[in-house]
C-alpha cells in the first residue's frame, strides 16, 4: 500500500506546530500502525532527515505509553484497541491519514507526537492508593471480597493511563481515568478507610491540573483501549456527594 500521511511536527510545547506530508510506501496489512511509523522513520533517517518522535514501549497494548490521534480519533478507528495493536489492514491503498498528538491543555507537547502526561501521576499522588506501609499484614484471606465486587474492582483497575479519554473529550476531562481508580478502591474493603478523602483529593487535583469537566458525552469510553465503562463516572459523582456529606468537602479529617 501507499499511504499519504499528514503528521503533526512540533519542536516543543512553546513552538508552533504544523502538519507535514509524508508518503509511506510498501506498507503491508500485517504491520502494526507503529511498525508503519518505524518504517517511515527509518526512511527519513536514511534520507538525512529527522524522524517523527512518537511514544511507544510494550507494543502489546498494556503499558499505555503509546497514543496517537488518527484521523481525529484517539488510538484510531478500531474500538478497544491501543494504537500499537492497530494493524494497517484497517486502511486501504491511497488513504490519507492524519496523525496528531493527544490534545489537552494538561498534556503539553514534548515533541511531535509525544505529550507529557505527568498530570495523571499527580492525580494518583493525591490519593490513588491505600495508605499501607510495607510489612506484615493480616493474612490475605482475612478480607473476604465477594466475587462480583472483586470483578468490578478489577475491570476499573484495568485502566492503562494512556490518556486517550482526555484526548477524545471535547472538555479534555480526566473523569474516566480518575473515576476508574476511585471505583477500584470503593469496591474493596481495603479502600474504605480513605474513601472520602481519596475522592475529594483526587477530584480537586484533577481540577487543579487543568482538566475540564465531564458533560456526559461518552467519547472517553468509546475510545478507551481497555473499554473502561462510563458508569465509573456516575459512581464518582455519587462518591463525591457522599464525601461532601460526610466530610463537608474537606480533604482532611477534622476532630
Amino acid at each position, binding site marked *: 500500500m501507499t499511504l499519504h500521511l499528514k503528521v503533526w511536527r512540533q*519542536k*516543543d510545547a512553546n513552538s508552533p506546530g504544523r502538519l507535514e506530508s509524508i508518503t509511506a510506501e510498501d506498507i*503491508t*496489512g*500485517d*504491520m*502494526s500502525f507503529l511498525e508503519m511509523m*518505524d*518504517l517511515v522513520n527509518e526512511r*527519513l*533517517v*536514511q534520507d*538525512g532527515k529527522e*524522524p517523527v*518522535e512518537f*511514544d*511507544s*514501549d*510494550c*507494543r*502489546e497494548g*498494556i*503499558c*499505555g505509553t503509546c497514543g496517537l490521534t488518527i484521523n481525529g480519533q484517539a488510538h484510531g478507528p478500531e474500538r478497544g484497541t491501543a494504537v500499537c*495493536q492497530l*494493524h494497517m*489492514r484497517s486502511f486501504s491503498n491511497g488513504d490519507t491519514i492524519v496523525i496528531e498528538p493527544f490534545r489537552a491543555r494538561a498534556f503539553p507537547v514534548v*515533541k511531535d507526537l*509525544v505529550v507529557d502526561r*505527568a498530570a495523571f*501521576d499527580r492525580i*494518583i*499522588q*493525591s490519593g*490513588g*492508593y*491505600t*495508605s*499501607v*506501609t*510495607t*510489612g506484615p*499484614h*493480616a*493474612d*490475605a*484471606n482475612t*478480607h*473476604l471480597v*465477594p*466475587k462480583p465486587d*472483586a*470483578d468490578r474492582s*478489577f475491570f476499573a483497575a*484495568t485502566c492503562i*493511563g494512556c490518556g486517550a479519554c482526555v484526548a477524545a473529550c471535547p472538555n479534555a476531562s480526566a473523569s474516566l481515568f480518575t473515576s476508574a481508580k476511585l471505583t*477500584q*478502591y470503593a469496591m*474493596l474493603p*481495603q479502600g474504605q478507610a480513605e474513601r472520602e478523602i481519596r475522592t475529594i483529593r483526587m477530584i480537586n487535583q484533577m481540577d487543579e491540573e487543568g482538566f475540564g469537566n465531564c458533560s456526559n458525552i461518552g467519547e472517553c469510553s468509546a475510545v478507551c483501549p481497555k473499554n473502561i465503562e462510563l458508569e465509573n463516572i456516575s459512581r464518582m459523582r455519587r462518591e463525591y456527594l457522599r464525601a461532601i456529606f460526610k466530610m463537608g468537602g474537606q480533604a482532611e479529617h477534622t476532630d
Partner: protein
Amino acid sequence: MKTLDSKIPEGPLHEKWDNRKAEYNLVAPNNKKKHNIIVVGTGLAGAASAASLAELGYNVKAFCISDSPRRAHSIAAQGGINATKNYPNDGDSIWRLFYDTIKGGDYRSREANTYRLAQLSSNIIDQAVAQGVPFAREYGGELATRSFGGAQVSRTFYARGQTGQQLLLGAYGALMRQVDEGKCEMFTHREMLDLVVVDGRARGIITRNLWTGEIERHSGDAVVLCTGGYGRVYFLSTNAFNSNGTAAWRCHRRGAFMANPCYVQIHPTCIPSSGHYQSKRTLMSESLRNDGRVWVPKNKADVDKPPHQIPEKDRDYYLERKYPAFGNLVPRDVASRNAKYMVDAGLGVGPQHNAVYLDFSHAIKEQGRDAIKEKYGNLFHMYHKITDENPYEQPMRIFPAVHYVMGGLWVDYNLMSNLPGLFVAGEANFSDHGANRLGASALMQGLADGYFIVSRAVSNYLAENRFEITDVSTDQGEFKEAEKEVRTGIDKLLELNEKAKAKPADQQRTVMDIYRDLGEIMWDKVGIARTGEGLKKALEEIPKLREEFWSGVIIPGDDDTFNKYLEVAGRVADFLELGELMARDALERDESAGCHFREEHQTEKGEALRDDEAYAYVAAWEYQGMNEAEKLHKEPLEFEFVKLKQRSYE
C-alpha cells in the same frame, strides 16, 4: 584481587534469613532522614524498593526511563505470581516452592537465596492485598489460585491476564504516596548513563533527561539498581522496546561483576515474525499447548500449501513422535529447540517459513468450539487480530522468542554487588532462578527483593559503614569526571553520523540496521541451542559488527532534545559489548544447563546434560576494557540441602 563472598548466613536453610535479619545493624529513626538513597528503575523491584525505603524515613530519589513509573515492563507479565499459601490445601509448603524453583533452574542457583524467595512469597500476597490489588476471587470471597508449569500444586495467584500490571500499580501507588509525602523525589524520563564510585563505594549516578538532553549528577549513600533484563540484545524479544541493559552494563564497566550472562529463557509459544519491519515478538500463553497439537509437513514440498490440504499421513507431529510420554507438553526449552530444528530443516510454515503449526482442530472436534472458546477465547482473539488468521478455522503459527534473562549483575545474599553500596534487585541481578526460570516466579522475585530484602540490607550497609560513608558533593572530581565521560560518549555517538555520511552511499547504515544484525547473530548462535563452533563464530562476528558501528552509523538530530535514535544508539553500543560477553560465557560453560543448551551435551532423550563436577558454579565476569577479554571469577555453588539430579518431568 576482588573476591566473591556470597555472605550466606549460618544455620539450617529455614533459619538463615531469620539469622541474617537478627544480625543486621539498624539505623536509628532520627538518623534515617540524613541518608539519601538512589533507586534506578521503578518496575516491581524498583517501585517496591523506593516506596519501602521512603516509608522507613530515608530520602529517596527514584529514576525511571518512561514518562511515568506506572509503565515499567513489569506490567506486561500476564500469568501470575507464585506463593506458598497452601489455600487449596493441596500440600504446598515453603520447601516445595523452594525445591521446584531450584530444580526448575537446573541446580544453578544458590540454595539460600532461593529458599528465602519461597519464604517471602506468602508475605507478598498479604502486602499486595492490603494495597488493594484486585486479585481473582472465588465466589466465597477468598483468593483464587491456578496451576502453572513445573509444579504439582495450585499456588499461582492472578488478576486475569494482567497480574504484572495490577501488582505494579500497587507498588506504584505506594511510591506515589511517598512522593506526595515528600519522602521520595521522582525523576521520570531519565536514563542512567553512569555510576559514580567514590573511595570504592557507589555514591551516585549520572543521568540524561531524555526530553531535554540535559546531563545530571545525583549523589546518594547507596544506589539500588532495578533496571530489568537485557533480552533486547536479541533485537526481537517479548520485552518492551525501551527495556535495555545500559545501566547494568555501565555499572559493569565501573567494576561490578556480570554473572551467568548466557542464561536466557526462550518461550516456545510466540507469534512468529511477519517481516523485516517487525519490532517485537508477542507472547501467547503456554497453556495453549494443553489442547493444541504441534506439527509441520513431512515433505518440504508441502510447506507452502494451506494446512487443510495436507493430509494426516503427510503431517509430522514431531513432539508426539519424539517424546511419546510428554508429547506437546514437553518443557519450554525442549519445545523451543525442536521448533527451531524443524524450521532449520526447511520445514517451517507460513509466508516466512519461520513457524510451526499449533493445531486445535482435533480439540475442537472432540470438545466443541464453545469449550475451546471458553478456555482460550481471548488468546484466539489476540492471535486473530495480529495475524488476520482465524485459529478456529486454521492452525496457529508459532515460534519461540527470547523472554527473560536469568543472568545479571552478581550480588551476594544481601543483594549487594561486589561494589560496596551498589545493590541490585529483580531481573537486573542474577540470583534466584539459576539456569531456567519457572513461570510465575519473576513477579515473586521482583517484589520479594523490593519490599522485603532491599530495605533491610541497605539499612544494614548504612549502619555498618557509617564512618566510611562520608559526605559527598556532586561538585567533586569523581562526579565531574563521570559526567565528562558521559558527555564524551554522547559526542562520540553524534560524530558517528558524520563518519557515516563520509562513507559511500551503499555502506551507510542506520543504528537499527546494525541492531538487527546483532540480534540475528545472537539468535542464530547464542539462542535456543548453542554449539562451540557457533559460539566461536559469534565471537568473531560481534567484534566485527562493533567495528562497523564505530566506523560510522547514521544517527540523526542533536543531543539537546528528545532524540530516540540517539538513545537507542547508546544502548546498541552497550549491547555490542554485552552480546560478546554472553557468547563468551556460553562458550566457557561447556555443559548444558536449563536454557543454556550446548548441543554437544545432551542425554539420549535430548535433555540438557549438566556437568556438576566442572560447572556447578556462578560465572562472574570482570570488565577489562573494550575489545579486551573479560576475566572470569567463579563462585562455587554448594548444595547442602538438596541432592543434584538429572532434571526430569516424566
